[in-house]
């Protein structure tokens, strides 16, 4: 192997790392120079980006097209509301615990839904989410059908000042999206990433080469469930009110996320970023037209799937061959 070396980054990806760093600094310092409206928007974009990256990891890399990720958003949110209101737990600790709670539920669930393949897997996960929504609305300590609220006393436990609290939650959103992106990126660069890419390209072939497809997929499913649970807790600590319908909403936590990933480019790390920007731009422009923006998103997603399966980022890659977040290995002489 003399004279050969493996390179992981490209010139663009090193340049892009600098851009990302500058962007990160801008966002972290944003509260000092922008208004609360902007902060709320960025915070919302942050958790949607995190959800999109996680769904992309599941569907785009592990081939697990789930339409039931709202289950874990809801579970995480309910874990936070229950732990804080019943045991007086600090909301930030409860938020961290929402992850293990979601993972503990995802593991046995996976053993059932993993029996279904492809699209049936998608609907199976949906059934689970629907069952959780109906189940929670029967449980009195979880507020049954009418839901739960976070009392001021619980919020004081984060920090008493209103503005300081907004600041903490804003930075937490940034921290979570950073952690999620980092986990996905590092996972894809690790040996599990190679296994995942092999599974994405051909499951039987990767199994025949010794990839333990079941364990790899199970690991991805449980990790994404845990992180989705934490994001769910974070989302609803901002909303202050939680009902079964809101927590387990398929439209808010899965449909929109799927559209972002598909439009941006499924199976690429850059895709969810592009999809996020397009989604929020469309939403801003079409805010006055009610349901039309969902119809338009649907049309765009269908068109993308038919004409350019790799999404908008895939088109960019094919045209210019740039990889901003490189997870590839290049053999160089």
């Amino acid at each position: 192997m003399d004279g050969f070396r493996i390179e992981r980054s490209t010139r663009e990806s090193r340049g892009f790392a600098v851009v990302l760093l500058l962007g990160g600094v801008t966002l972290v310092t944003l509260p000092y120079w922008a208004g609360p409206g902007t902060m709320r928007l960025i915070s919302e974009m942050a958790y949607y980006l995190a959800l999109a990256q996680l769904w992309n990891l599941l569907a785009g890399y592990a081939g697990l097209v789930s339409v039931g990720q709202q289950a874990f958003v809801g579970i995480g949110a309910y874990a936070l509301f229950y732990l804080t209101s019943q045991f007086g737990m600090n909301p930030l600790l409860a938020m961290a615990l929402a992850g293990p709670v979601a993972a503990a539920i995802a593991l046995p669930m996976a053993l059932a839904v993993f029996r279904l393949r492809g699209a049936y897997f998608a609907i199976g996960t949906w059934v689970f989410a629907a069952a959780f929504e109906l189940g929670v609305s029967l449980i009195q300590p979880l507020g049954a059908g009418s839901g739960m609220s976070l009392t001021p006393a619980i919020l004081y436990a984060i920090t008493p000042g209103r503005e300081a609290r907004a600041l903490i939650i804003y930075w937490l959103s940034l921290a979570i999206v950073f952690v999620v992106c980092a986990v996905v990126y590092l996972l894809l660069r690790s040996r599990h990433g190679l296994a995942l890419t092999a599974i994405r390209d051909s499951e039987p072939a990767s199994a025949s080469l010794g990839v333990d497809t079941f364990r790899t997929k199970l690991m991805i499913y449980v990790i994404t469930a845990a992180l989705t649970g934490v994001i769910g807790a974070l989302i609803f600590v901002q909303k202050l009110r939680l009902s079964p319908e809101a927590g387990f909403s398929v439209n808010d936590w899965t449909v929109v996320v799927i559209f972002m990933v598909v439009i941006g480019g499924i199976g690429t790390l850059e895709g969810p970023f592009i999809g996020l920007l397009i989604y929020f731009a469309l939403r801003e422009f079409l805010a006055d037209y009610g349901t039309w923006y969902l119809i338009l998103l649907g049309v765009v997603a269908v068109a993308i799937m038919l004409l350019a399966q790799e999404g908008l980022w895939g088109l960019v890659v094919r045209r210019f061959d740039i990889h901003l977040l490189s997870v590839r290995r290049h053999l160089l002489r």
Partner: protein
Amino acid sequence: MDWINILIQGALLGGLYALFAVGLSLAFGIMRLVNIAHGDLIVLAAYLALMTVQTTGLGALGSLVVVVPAMFVLGYLLQRGLLNFTLSGGLLPPLLVTFGISVIIENVLLQEFGADIMRLHAGAIETASLRLGGGIAVGVYPLLVFTTAVAAIAGLQLLFDRTTLGRAFRATSDDAATAELMGIDNRHIYAVAMGIAMVFTALAGVLMGIRTTFDPSAGPVRLIFAFEAVIIGGLGSLWGTLLGGMVLAIAQEVAGAVSPNWQILAGHIAFLVILIVRPSGFFPRTRD
């Protein structure tokens, strides 16, 4: 005697769920396509019936004369113009395209008809019942729905077993490439299959609209019921689908009699239990 009544109610309702499921099962059996928009197409059929009743003065059941052909044409065009192009590229395209269609249908209905709850009215037949003695009574309408489901499934089974079209369906299902070599035009066969699937969807939508209320967001729940019936019955088996529908509906009705809040949840739980103990359903025929 109450419990016998509840079981009969459940069994009859199972016929409607089987009608929900047949279209889904057919599309999967022939083109390995899982149509996520299936539930929304059922609801769309109910709205088409509503429009037909309002514009032509036909009765709710009479509207089938318009809705069934309309849905056949829609199914044919949908498959020929859109879904056929998704079949060659792996798992994601058909899934995400039908998912997109589902969201489009739901929101177009919402835009056109608003979020109000709608219902089709079929007159006296809705409340008529037959007394069977011993305190057991059967509603005429549920009985009609169940008989329709049985007749429709029997008809479809005959079509599969006895006709040239059925043979072409089975051939493409077994080996699409070889079927094409034998002179079958797969694109057309798939489109006809989706048209037929939509005939059942139209029946299901209209019969559902008379039995219960519906609104634009009612689709996903119908998709889930259809899916549960298919998996309980076993992939690819038409009569299994009827059985699956009945198991699901009986679970719902029994739980609903105990506590109405548990009705739908009990159906999901029954499905999940069967998925865990008998993952390939009762009469599996297709391997995916």
